[in-house]
């Protein structure tokens, strides 16, 4: 699923590993989300949105659904 995770992460000048640690997931999981190879669970999507101060809809593009 298309998303703004990479853009928002780079805005905060965070490395994938730092975001992964904050979310309690592996760096590879963050990488997979950014590259649209993995769609996160609802709890993780909400946690990511809250972390960046945006809504889930702003972070994830549901046009493909």
């Amino acid at each position, binding site marked *: 699923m298309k998303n703004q995770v990479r853009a928002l992460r780079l805005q905060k000048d965070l490395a994938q590993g730092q975001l992964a640690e*904050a*979310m*309690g*997931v*592996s760096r*590879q*999981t963050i990488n*997979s989300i950014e590259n649209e190879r*993995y769609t*996160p*669970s609802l*709890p*993780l999507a909400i*946690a990511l949105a*809250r*972390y960046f101060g945006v809504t889930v809809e702003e972070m994830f593009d549901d046009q493909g659904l």
Partner: protein
Amino acid sequence: MIKDCSRFTRSRWFMLAFSVALGGVVLLASWLGGSLASGLIGLAVLTGFGLFVSLASGSETIRGLRGDGRDERFALMDLRATAIVGQVLIIAVIIGFLVEIARGHNGNPYGWLGALGGLSYVLAVAYFRWRG
């Protein structure tokens, strides 16, 4: 903000403990069957695998197999891999059952294994449906 992913993880020593315990059971069964040497080989192989997985580091695959590097994505991969294993085993059991019937036998133990698999699947579906 740190999510609680502890439900996905387990100790990095779990796989070593499990492998050694399984090796011990293999050793016991082999000893009871009069083949102590093959039991010792089984214990050594399983212990070696457990040590390798427990002491290796770096790879996400190793950490995922070990359990201490799991998160929701790896749990999903584990679920899918387990489903593939189940499908492979079901196909093998069905083929074994058919071969045994074609050879004029009653199809066992493949018949029992197939029945166990089918019953387990139905019960699991019923349980998950009940649980919602």
